[in-house]
């Protein structure tokens, strides 16, 4: 369907189903119960899942397919965010022009950066992208303050022109909307002890994410995607066959930059402000972590990685010692004290420590990320059930390198 083969179609619909039903699926615990803190079904977090999912899908098109490790992708997200906020300041609070211009500006900027950076490969490429990202970060903080509003971050104001819209509505800044539907609007459904929130912004993100995912599948399965894989496996051989790899890698770079811009635009659509810290190289590192954690070079891996990191970030940083004591209430006091003492560094503010350790373990033992883990477990079961039938099951996706 839609030019996808059977397997991809089912994957696409599976993702679609998950995304549409997410407000139910992510809220498995009734309101007010002990476990309600593990619920992730509130709009802000669900939006972040999808937005970072888009970001990671885009990064994966570059890193997963061509193997070029960019350490500067956050710059495109930042540029996209700034472009989006400016559209809202100048034109209208409708999110469509904002998102569109985010993609365009991020695309142009990534064209410039990619054109220069892709002259080198390997570590040199990583350093060049890092240098560009740090440069834009520093500039956003200093010289470009008239455009970026420096440390405060770019925000909407009451006296913005907004040519196609209104500057202010009843003395307040008008809300970001999609042809009149405010992004913040939610429909709440209360069923028994459960409270499900269906947020307009979330479903806008969902539609955009599904389109982005569909485009990514098509890229993966296209001859163009094949070329990108060829760049990864052996660029020299590709050159020997008379193909110039540069246009292909540049196209991949710009596409992934546009995905980052799209993510930035959506961020603005959900919450109309933009700050330079979005461009810092640690932010670029985060998307690398998401992609690797999920599984670089696989279709769905980056989305899983993004969701996993954002979920853990949210949950781990919420847990504190009191909650731990609640859990271990059944254990003897001494043992509970000891367990809390051991776990304490990894929760709350120590969440980055957990993330770092998790990331190292993944890189060391499971270079293909979560997807490789799933596949290994799958193979284990398959081999057990049909030992004589098909003993040489091969992994479908090559592990990322």
């Amino acid at each position, binding site marked *: 369907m839609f030019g996808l083969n059977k397997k991809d179609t089912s994957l696409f619909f599976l993702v679609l189903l998950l995304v549409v039903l997410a407000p139910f699926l992510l809220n498995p615990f009734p309101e007010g119960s002990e476990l309600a803190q593990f619920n992730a079904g509130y709009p802000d977090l669900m939006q972040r899942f999808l937005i970072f999912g888009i970001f990671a899908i885009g990064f994966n098109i570059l890193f997963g397919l061509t193997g070029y490790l960019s350490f500067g992708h956050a710059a495109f997200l930042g540029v996209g965010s700034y472009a989006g906020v400016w559209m809202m300041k100048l034109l209208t609070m409708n999110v469509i022009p904002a998102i569109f211009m985010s993609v365009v500006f991020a695309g142009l900027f990534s064209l410039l950066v990619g054109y220069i950076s892709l002259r080198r490969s*390997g*570590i040199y490429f990583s*350093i060049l992208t890092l*240098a560009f990202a740090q440069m834009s970060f520093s500039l956003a903080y200093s*010289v470009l303050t008239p455009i970026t509003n420096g440390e405060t971050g770019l925000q909407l104001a009451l006296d913005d022109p907004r040519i196609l819209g209104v500057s202010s509505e009843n003395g307040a800044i008008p809300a970001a909307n999609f042809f009149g539907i405010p992004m913040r609007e939610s429909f709440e459904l209360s069923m028994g002890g459960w409270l499900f929130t269906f947020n307009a912004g979330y479903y806008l993100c969902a539609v955009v994410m599904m389109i982005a995912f569909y485009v990514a599948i098509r890229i993966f399965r296209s001859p163009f995607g094949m070329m990108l894989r060829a760049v990864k496996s052996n660029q*020299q051989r590709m050159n020997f066959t008379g193909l110039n790899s540069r246009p292909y890698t540049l196209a991949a770079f710009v596409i992934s930059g546009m995905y980052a811009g799209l993510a930035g635009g959506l961020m603005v659509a959900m919450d109309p402000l933009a700050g330079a810290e979005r461009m810092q190289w640690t932010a670029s590192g985060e998307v690398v972590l998401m992609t690797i954690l999920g599984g670089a070079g696989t279709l769905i891996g980056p989305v899983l990685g993004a969701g996993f990191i954002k979920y853990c970030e949210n949950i781990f940083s919420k847990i504190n010692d009191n909650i731990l004591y609640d859990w271990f209430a059944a254990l003897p006091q001494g043992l509970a004290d000891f367990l809390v003492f051991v776990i304490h560094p990894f929760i709350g503010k120590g969440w*980055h420590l957990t993330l*770092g350790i998790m*990331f190292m373990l993944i890189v060391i033992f499971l270079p293909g990320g979560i997807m490789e883990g799933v596949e290994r477990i799958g193979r284990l079961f398959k081999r057990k059930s049909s030992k004589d039938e098909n003993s040489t099951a091969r992994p479908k996706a090559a592990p990322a390198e």
Partner: protein
Amino acid sequence: MDAILLQILNGLDKGSAYALIALGLTLIFGTLGVVNFAHGALFMIGAFCAVTLSRLLSLSFVTIDETQKDFLGNPLKVETPYVEAWFGPETGAAIIDWSVPLAILFSIPIMALVGLLMERGLIKYFYKRPHADQILVTFGLAIVLQEIIKYFFGANPIPTPAPDVFAGSLDFGAMLGMDPNIIIYPYWRIVYFLFAAVIIGAVFAFLQFTTFGMVVRAGMADRSTVGLLGINIDKRFTVMFALAAVVAGLAGVMYAPINSPNYHMGMDFLVLSFVVVVVGGMGSLPGAVLAGFLLGILESFASMAQVVALLPGINQIIIYLVAIVILLTRPRGLMGRKGVMES
């Protein structure tokens, strides 16, 4: 003239730090072929060695002095550091005052141990893996080390003063017969520069004039041939990794008085040091040192008021700009060797 001299001097201390870190990075890359993103973390651990030692030395016990009263009329509690009790007040105070230079001795075994553990425990398994994997795993390690330090020392910078002797500034202009107070330069920065020069000299001398260094250089040039001669080159490279860790650590220890150590100082320096290594040429030790000083001085020139007025923001981006230009015009860097990182 005086302005130019001042900027050169200002660039020297930052340049020294860049040069030391870049030297360690290049040592690791040249010997083991590993891109170490955790090198900035080693620099930071060094700085926190200084913090730890100064805290250890000022550990005190409390005595109640009946002869003195505090403002409420209660007997005054007097804290006496153990070192003052053991060595007498004067010597003890001097030891506390000199905690940063003493931390040099304190940090060498610690950094060597950290380096050995890192190499044997983790990096060893990544020689055969692609560079991207090495970058990723050391990046993860850097996050972990940084968070561990943050857990123990908190997120705020910790002031670690230099000994009182070096507290003032040298009136460099007056020495050269210019008006006083034009070129003043803190003593500690001079110390830092001299220290860096000694360390760099020592590393080069070690590589150049000892048998061990000769074998290491041979291994850098052709690892397999050295192995065929029956020399256990891996063992020597492990030592070189520890040495690189010590160099980064010492750079951190001495940098503590210049910039109060905080847990993310390593990351801040790491990005710049990588740029320095790339500008100097991957795998070239003299290149790393040269580029370190060059970029440090360039950065301080770019932050001159006149330059900033002409090209606003240039001081923030000059290093990256230079790196981009160098990489595009001289892909091997200033003094890069042929065949390093060229697939």
